[in-house]
């Protein structure tokens, strides 16, 4: 080896100073980069309100929003409305998740189940849940029942679709392994089918959470007498843009928190493949 290096003609050795090539990467990350955009937006809003460019009837000043939040908490309206909203969304989410998962397992493990269930659910998938609202109001009235059912309908579809997909994409070699070990059906389900479908299920959950909040916003703005949506609806009638913004911020926080929770669950439950994915 050494000999060949020595024998190499001098002209071909690489120059010690190399011109930097054109960089195609976006470069090093900026510290706290994610906060810059929102902060800029907030400053424009604050500056506009302070200078009087923004009419408070169009958009309340940021500090008004903060004091209004304080007032709403002080008289308990915020907590009450938040609790009732969270209850609706949570109930719909739980029921929808259970239904979606059970249907996915039935359709994924039996040809008859698939023949009976998959078609109707694919049709349901094509119809936005919110388009069913007039029918749901006629059937179930405008009470809690209708609200939870609407949220449930929005939740179970993505849970079903992605869990079913996860089940179908389980490697058939693992099924063969189960056969060769003569696993009882219950063990096969618990050790192979459900863990195999878990990545799909959790992906479905992320969509489901988004859908739950979306459905909540809509049902709470229709003939509701409680909840964040109702609070915002009432504020619209009185022209209180500050209360509306408090509601929007709440929805945003709830969305972020719940998505974060599902992602955390994803990381925990799928730690076995972290070495590859993360």
């Amino acid at each position, binding site marked *: 080896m050494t000999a060949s290096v020595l024998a190499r003609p001098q002209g071909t050795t690489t120059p010690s100073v190399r011109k930097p090539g054109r960089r195609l990467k976006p470069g090093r990350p900026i510290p706290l980069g994610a906060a810059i955009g929102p902060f800029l937006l907030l400053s424009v809003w604050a500056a506009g309100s302070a200078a009087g460019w923004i009419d408070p009837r169009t958009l309340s000043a940021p500090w008004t929003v903060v004091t209004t939040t304080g007032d709403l908490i002080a008289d308990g309206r915020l907590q009450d409305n938040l609790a009732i909203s969270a209850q609706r969304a949570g109930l719909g989410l739980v029921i929808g998740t259970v239904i979606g998962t059970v249907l996915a397992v039935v359709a994924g493990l039996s040809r008859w189940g698939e023949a009976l269930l998959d078609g109707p659910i694919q049709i349901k998938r094509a119809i936005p849940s919110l388009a069913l609202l007039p029918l749901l109001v006629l059937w179930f009235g405008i009470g809690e029942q209708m609200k939870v059912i609407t949220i449930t309908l929005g939740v179970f579809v993505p849970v079903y679709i992605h869990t079913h997909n996860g089940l179908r994409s389980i490697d058939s070699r693992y099924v063969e*392994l189960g056969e060769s*070990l003569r696993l009882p059906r219950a063990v096969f389900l618990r050790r192979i089918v459900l863990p195999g479908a878990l990545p799909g299920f959790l992906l479905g959950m992320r969509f489901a959470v988004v859908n739950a909040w979306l459905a909540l916003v809509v049902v709470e703005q229709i003939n509701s007498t409680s909840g964040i949506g109702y609070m915002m609806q009432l504020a619209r009638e009185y022209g209180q843009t500050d209360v509306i913004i408090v509601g929007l911020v709440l929805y945003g926080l709830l969305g972020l928190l719940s998505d974060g929770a599902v992602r955390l669950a994803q990381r925990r439950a799928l730690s076995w493949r972290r*070495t*590859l994915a993360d």
Partner: protein
Amino acid sequence: MATNLGGLTATGTVRVHRLVRGFGSRAVLDGFDLEIGAGEFVALLGRSGSGKSTLLRALAGLDSDVDGSGVIEVPEKSSVVFQDARLLPWQRVLDNVVLGLRGSNAHERGRAALAEVGLAGRENAWPNELSGGEQQRVALARALVSEPELLLADEPFGALDALTRLRMHDLLRELYARHRPTVLLVTHDVDEAVTLADRVLLLDSGRIAVDLTIDLPAQRSHRQPQFLAYRETLLRALGVNHSEG
């Protein structure tokens, strides 16, 4: 639907009678007969498409979607080792080993099996964290932990590098000496067959072309003249024009 009249043998013998297996109109095995004695180590050689995997899958009962008929008698307690380790990536190594076990001492037995294949201390690793050879050792542990009377292995070392394969040969001989199951090892590697087995069957177009008893000491090497003679015979039967020097 492949129907298996006959059933289970108690002593570890394998009996196949008039076995027919095919895909569509093409019969891979047509009236195939085979007997393997209890505790015999048989290697099944053959080119691809010779029917060796079809036979192994029939013995393992993994061909319910294949057309066929015939009588298969195999021990009730049999295990399969596949070419890929086929570990569940979402189960830790020990849980993979004890997947088919029931009973309260399953974990103990799993630990012992892992120690036997030289993987003591890796019980809590994820399969992805192991090398290919280590994964295949886990698969061996999983196959042997149930103390099978018949071990069916479908090119179990085919995906390993040459060095790892040699070490796995030693391990398999060692495990075989200790547990004495009947072994049917499918391989396309003549050296592997002669190194490991006591009897080599060469399958050609669905029938046994050569049935060779390997009469060599447990310690085998390529330098033994008899080893080379067996190798020559088998290579010639496989149609390899093998000229030395």
